[in-house]
């Protein structure tokens, strides 16, 4: 068990910097998720913690040791790879026990530990099989077993569920959560799937373009996105982002323009803001209500109606040609081509300044 600290970590490939000075602190026994779009550097960051990638600058601490120059195996971390990376020429037993064998653990002890792990993961009957004879879910369990058996102080997961089908992914997600509860070990999990991030994490680290955009609990980042990137990335369907401008600035009150010309007064910190400045209004699809319900409303025409059973997605074009998504009730009768009046509460509005930072 250990905390993980990154201090001003940088990584360059052929002079091209991809991680731009990332610093973060992960607490002991915490389950954190690095989430971000493809190419944001989340896997590179994880691989640097694992020791599989050199660090261009900065320091990584696992526990109280700086592990910069330590061999991957000496860092006390174990990793589950996206592709499982099971040794195809070994059976499941040998795959799980390989690390112990390398560490010269005696055969009786290896057998005991492998059987214990197999029991936890319910793969006892698979121990004599080769990886090629296993299903995707079984392979994933073996890959996890291989990490558990080494009793690491930090678990690293690199998009471990992305090769599984949707149903299995949900099941494995729950199993990983249970595993975390049972082992009480620090876990760092990389994914581009925000559902995995939201459901599993104690804290989410949202990365974009080699920098951390926001750190917080799943609900924190969902409810209070720090910038436009986080607002657009977290949440599905994504937050509606409407271009607007400042009509008036008073002390602690901002007046902005709504699509169609309406005026929206909002209580905000108005420091450094001036009339005419561009900004973005963000409203989550579930916070828009049909029939003017709320403090304010604006109008739009329905382009597409998607009935999902429990809810209905309405894709709407407003008066300023912004594309808006609204989540209505499952039994909504709104038809394509109808005009809807989208109501919302002031408290559900997010305002971002011209540089994309949130205005609180």
């Amino acid at each position, binding site marked *: 068990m250990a905390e993980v600290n990154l201090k001003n970590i940088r990584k360059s490939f052929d002079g091209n910097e991809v991680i731009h000075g990332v610093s973060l602190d992960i607490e002991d026994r915490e389950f954190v998720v690095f989430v971000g779009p493809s190419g944001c550097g989340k896997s590179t960051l994880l691989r640097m913690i694992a020791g*599989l990638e050199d660090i261009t600058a900065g320091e990584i601490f696992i526990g109280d040791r700086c592990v910069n120059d330590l061999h991957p195996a000496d860092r006390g971390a174990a990793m589950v790879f996206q592709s*499982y990376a099971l040794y195809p020429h070994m059976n499941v037993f040998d795959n799980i026990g390989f690390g112990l064998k390398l560490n010269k653990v005696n055969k009786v002890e290896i057998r005991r530990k492998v059987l214990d792990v197999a029991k936890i993961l319910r793969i006892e009957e698979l121990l004599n099989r080769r990886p090629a004879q296993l299903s995707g879910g079984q*392979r994933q369990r073996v890959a996890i077993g291989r990490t558990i058996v080494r009793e690491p102080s930090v678990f690293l997961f690199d998009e471990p569920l992305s090769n599984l089908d949707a149903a299995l992914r949900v099941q494995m997600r729950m199993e990983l959560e249970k595993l975390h509860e049972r082992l009480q070990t620090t876990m760092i999990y990389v994914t581009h799937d925000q559902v995995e991030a939201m459901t599993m994490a104690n804290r989410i680290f949202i990365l974009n373009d080699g920098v951390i955009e926001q750190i917080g609990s799943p609900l924190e980042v969902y409810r209070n996105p720090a910038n436009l990137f986080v607002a657009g990335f977290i949440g599905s369907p994504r937050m509606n982002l409407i271009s607007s401008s400042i009509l008036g600035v008073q002390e602690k009150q901002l007046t902005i323009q709504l699509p169609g010309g309406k005026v929206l007064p909002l209580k905000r910190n108005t420091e450094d803001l001036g009339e005419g400045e561009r900004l973005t209004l963000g409203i989550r699809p579930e916070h828009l209500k049909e029939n003017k319900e709320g403090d304010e409303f604006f109008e739009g025409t329905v382009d597409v109606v998607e009935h999902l059973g429990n809810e209905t997605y309405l894709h709407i074009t407003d008066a300023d040609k912004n594309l808006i998504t609204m989540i209505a009730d499952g039994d909504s009768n709104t038809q394509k081509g109808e005009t809807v009046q989208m109501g919302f509460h002031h408290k559900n509005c997010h305002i971002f300044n011209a540089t994309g930072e949130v205005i609180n």
Partner: protein
Amino acid sequence: MHKNRGTRIPPKSIRYSLYSLLAVLVSMIFLFPIYWAFSTSLRNPIETFTVSGLGIPFIHFVPTLDNWIDQLYTGEARRAIGNSTLIAVSASLLALFLGTPAAYALARFRFKTIKNKDLTIWFLSQRVLPPVATIVPFYLVMQTLGLLDTHLALILINATFVLPFVVVIVRQTFMDLPIELEEAALMDGASYFGAFLKVALPLAAPAIVATGLIMFAFTWNEFLFAVTISSKDVITIPIHMAGAVDTRGVQFWFMAVRAMIAIAPPVIIALLAQKYIVRGLTLGAVKG
């Protein structure tokens, strides 16, 4: 539709028959010289050019094992087989032993001063040079070392010449292996050498064995250096074959036997090791 049933041959069958016929014809073109050598090896010298038809034993002539007995019981032939086997096996193993780690390094590590791509091309460039251009330097080197007409000289020269192939072919094999397997081994506690030895090497083994077989065939067939570097004590099979030419002309009956002996080892080894040539061991290692 119903009317035609039973009267028309489906086009697929016609295609299949044509392909089969073509395959048989092509095989015959390749196999005929071997068959002819085999047939000649069973004839009396006098029947070499007088046999009619396709020279089928028992039909067109009465076969005899005299040529085989003569050749197999002379010390020369047996020495040539022994020499060739020792040189080909040793040179192939030496090339694999030296080339496989080099191939792995080129596949997995990034060299900074000279780029990996340039190093690979440098290896390959050793084979661009016509071997004949290196005869004099090699002769002088071996003379200086006192190795002329020794097994060691031919082993070293042959290993040098097949080494680039080993490096290039095996490098590609390592590159095709998922790197995560070795990374997993590193995380499990293996050193870089351990990951190579315990994970990459067993997985690349089929390709390495296949490469070794090809190198064995190359070395087994090598003529140029064998004839220049060693001409008395270390006679190899190709030199022995060429030796069937004497003042009376070409002794086709002996040459046929020697040709069959020369063909046999690479063919037998290839047949026995067929399963290693078939790849697919990595199946199931990664997502699927």
